């Protein structure tokens, strides 16, 4: 136990250290940023797999930073939910780092890119791993600020504009989170989340809890891009370089938004009944509005960005149901979405890399010239549209079944409708970009370099295997543990505190 706990801070330390070294040496040594970026994220991915194993043995790992015992010092906690998120974040980060090796050649100063990228990963890992609510805010800001800078990385006019909008709205969201934390601190006199949950369990419910819930809903909802807090996303995500778009849509909105929202609502302050209804409503609204906005887009990446809003809606709907099945479906969809959405953004990046355009109307017949991109894109499209046997099908199925089981027929219907529209809009993408006759202008198009192909193929394989994984023992270790933490609700506190005693 004692040794195992030491793995916990590594998730932040390794990422931060990698960022530091890249910024120090990356300018001097040419291939260094590439190697360091992939290596760091690979180590992190390996560690997160180890974390899964450890959680299976010990259930909860708690690390006290600087040997200050919580609740005075800062605690870092790895439980089922955390390890699940860690795997998701670091797996995607690793594949995107590999992809970036070739893709980022178009840009100057790669080392800045990798520094910011690793900083963002550090922030996300920190948010997921921390057991201290103010610490959560700090990591949230680290990741957010890094992402503002990355959105503006191309420094073109529209990129700067998008980054500015994103920064303003993101800061507003962060501020509401901060106000919420201040209120909580004033009410409970502690910042440790487990401790705070204990205090809440003893005190009678007050209106303050509701107030804080709304503040968090707005703040984290904005990070997660729930309608009506979503408006920054369709500008910010397409403007970033493709690997960063994949990172933002794939994992950032989930670790900063969905994870934090769930952790605090389920494990700390307890989910108010009305709030669950609101979550489900917002989820359904995002699902429908996102997809209807997406279907009319001609910009490949913008279309994908709107779909992120829609898919986050599914996740929130599933988790908001509050039944074990619903939470399981929501989390599974979270994982699946981070896989197929990153893949889709990487595809769009590959197309842009090869043809220089993001406008679907200027493409056509690319599957002859870029078979790998076209094939992986088809797989990802099928996954997001929920066509069996790809992974998206299973999670959507679970969410719909869970909604019907809980008696929410209307929500289930909207979920089905959004799924149909998703299929339609991705059919549009494949038709205009990859099918049909090759345009004369595109005759010289070549398939992208190896490192980009490799990432796309690995992600596509996960999409295909995702459904099978669901029926294997991995599911037990991976998903069930995570959803168990959320369905366990306030027992989080006692588990963390008892782990501290050992």
């Amino acid at each position, binding site marked *: 136990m004692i040794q195992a706990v030491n793995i916990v801070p590594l998730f932040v330390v390794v990422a931060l250290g990698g960022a530091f070294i890249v910024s120090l040496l990356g300018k001097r040594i040419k291939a260094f940023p590439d190697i360091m970026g992939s290596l760091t994220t690979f180590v992190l991915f390996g560690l997160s797999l180890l974390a899964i194993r450890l959680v299976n043995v010990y259930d909860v790992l708690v690390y006290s930073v600087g040997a200050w015992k919580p609740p005075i010092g800062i605690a870092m906690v790895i439980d089922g939910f955390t390890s699940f998120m860690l795997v998701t974040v670091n797996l995607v980060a690793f594949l995107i780092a590999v992809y970036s090796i070739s893709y980022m050649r178009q840009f100057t100063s790669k080392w800045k890119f990798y520094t910011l990228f690793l900083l963002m990963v550090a922030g996300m890992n920190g948010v997921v791993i921390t057991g201290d609510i103010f610490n959560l805010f700090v990591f949230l800001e680290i990741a957010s600020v890094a992402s503002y800078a990355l959105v503006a990385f191309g420094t073109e006019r529209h990129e700067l504009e998008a980054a500015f909008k994103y920064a303003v709205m993101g800061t507003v969201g962060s501020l509401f989170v901060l106000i919420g934390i201040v209120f909580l601190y004033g009410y409970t006199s502690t910042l440790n989340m487990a401790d705070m949950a204990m205090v809440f369990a003893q005190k009678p419910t007050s209106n303050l809890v509701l107030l804080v819930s709304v503040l968090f809903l*707005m703040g984290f909802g904005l990070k997660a891009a729930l309608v009506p807090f979503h408006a920054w996303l369709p500008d910010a995500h397409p403007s970033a370089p493709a690997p960063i778009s994949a990172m933002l849509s794939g994992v950032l909105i989930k670790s900063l938004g969905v994870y934090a929202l769930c952790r605090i609502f389920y494990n700390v302050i307890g989910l108010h009944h009305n709030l669950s209804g609101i979550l489900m409503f917002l989820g359904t609204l995002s699902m429908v509005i996102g997809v209807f906005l997406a279907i009319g887009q001609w910009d490949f990446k913008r279309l994908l960005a709107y779909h992120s809003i829609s898919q986050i809606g599914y996740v929130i709907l599933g988790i908001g149901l509050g039944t074990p099945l619903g939470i399981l479906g929501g989390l599974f969809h979270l994982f699946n979405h981070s896989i197929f959405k990153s893949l889709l953004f990487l595809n769009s990046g590959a197309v842009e890399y090869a043809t220089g355009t993001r406008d679907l109307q200027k493409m056509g017949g690319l599957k002859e010239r870029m078979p790998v991109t076209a094939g992986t894109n088809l797989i990802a499209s099928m996954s997001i549209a929920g066509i069996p046997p790809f992974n998206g099908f299973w999670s959507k199925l679970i969410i719909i079944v869970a909604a019907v089981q809980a008696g929410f027929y209307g929500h289930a219907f909207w979920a089905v409708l959004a799924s149909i529209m998703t299929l339609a809009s991705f059919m*549009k993408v*494949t038709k205009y970009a990859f099918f049909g006759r090759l345009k004369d202008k595109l005759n010289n198009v070549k398939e992208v370099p190896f490192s980009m192909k490799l990432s796309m193929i690995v992600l596509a394989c996960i999409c295909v295997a995702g459904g099978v994984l669901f029926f294997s023992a991995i599911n037990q270790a991976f998903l069930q543990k995570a959803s168990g933490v959320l369905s366990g609700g306030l027992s989080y506190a006692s588990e963390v505190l008892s782990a501290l005693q050992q």
Partner: protein
Amino acid sequence: MSLNAEFFRFDALSNFIGIFVCIFTVLVFLYSLGFMPKRKGLIRYYLYILLTLISSLGVVFSNNLILFIVFWGFLGLLLYLLIGFGQKTNTPATAKKAFIIIGATDALMLLGLAFVWRISGTLQMDAMRITLSSKVAVWAYLCLAVGAFAKAGAMPFHTWVPDAAEDSPAPVAAYLPASLDKLLGIYFLARLSIYMFRMNNSMNIVLMAVGSFTIVAAVMMALVQHDLKRLLGYHAVSQVGYMVLGIGTGNPIGIAGGLFHMLNHAIYKSCLFLSAGSVEKKAETTDLEDLGGLAKFMPVTFITFLIASFAISGVPPFNGFASKWMVYQGIIERGSSGGFIWVIFLVSAMFGSALTLASFMKLIHAVFLGQPSKHQAPSTEHRDVSPLMWIPQVFLALLCIVFGVFVYRVPLKMFIFPALGERVSSSGIWEASPATILIIVGIVIGIIIYFLGTLSKIRETESFIGGESLKDNPQMRISGTRFYDTVKDIGFLSVIFKLAERKLFDIYEVGAKITFAFNKFLRYLHNGVLPTYLAWCLLGMGIIFYILFK
């Protein structure tokens, strides 16, 4: 059978469908060897065909509803990929449309599955016996049936079938929309209506109404088409009506008729599509205006096409007649319990059959008889297509005859009646064999009389001026494409045809219009102005406050 009864189940109904799935795959595979060469990505083509076979067998034999939907949904993707092998300009759009319609109904089936689970608590298909007593049960049935309708191509989910027929390669059209999708769609409808749900009277009437409407509406559309494969596509829709109608009758003879018609349809329709493919290969077009007089160039294809046309039109003694006859009997038997609405169903079924015959007369005239068109590819040699292509055609045509003539001894006894597992009694099974002999005798006597009549009084005259060589007067040629265009001028029908031309009955086009209108509105709201976006956030927060604190 003990092969994990939880997931897979082999009963007479699924065995019989499974056998024919395999037969059609083999035939289409053979035909493709002759039809597809010189195209790119043939390995993928045969891989998809193989995957289609596997998933179809999965659909037929799975006993768990989730497993079923996995195979079923995957077939939609395969259909999309296979249509993509077509080489027309419209092929990508058609593939997209087909997949969206199929995928949409598959998504509805998920909802149906969720409902079923809520009602019965099991997903095992043979353990269900749901009564349509509650609203949820009705919705569950409808959601699942919609999937079957779209797959088989019943109205209003039919619009992908004619498009796919026109724009996909002929073997694909013969394989999926014409045979496999029909087999599977109607199989699932039968499984639903006979085993999984307990039908009630009003649901039966809904089914029958859908069926008879499909028969008449689709055949009317078929009358005015001028593309060979598209016309066949509309017939593929129209014939589904008989199957749905037969299953909708809810009595054994009707259901047996529906299933039998499904089988027959798969046989003659794939024969028709394969023959059409041969025509396309030979003449390099499927536009009826440009075809004509092909009978002497491709005699085998002509004969197989003719036989299949008789079968689909319900001319005795071919198989189409036998199954239609059973469907009619089913309707009549249902009518014996009272009510008048069955008369409408019966009349529309018979009327549809007559119109089918009419449109095939036009088709045969325009393609095989009449005069060769001037657009005809000059390389038309006096040779039929390769044996790889005509052997499947001939085999299917022979099946049409065998299943028609020995209707009671072969198909019904071997496949249909065991599948239903109950004794089918009827007011009079069609005894085909003596009738066939009578028909043949009649034809022979007719020929003898004809020759006796002409032998004695042959006279030679100058030919009629209009009969002079067409090579000099190409404008005198009548292709027959517009035989029935006058039907468009009949009062209320003219309005309907005009609306149909504007695609107002196409659920896909209408859905797209609504979607894009909504999309336009939402895009208008997203004007890119930062203060507006911030205002939304605050507004949203205010509303949530209000809801929580009220």
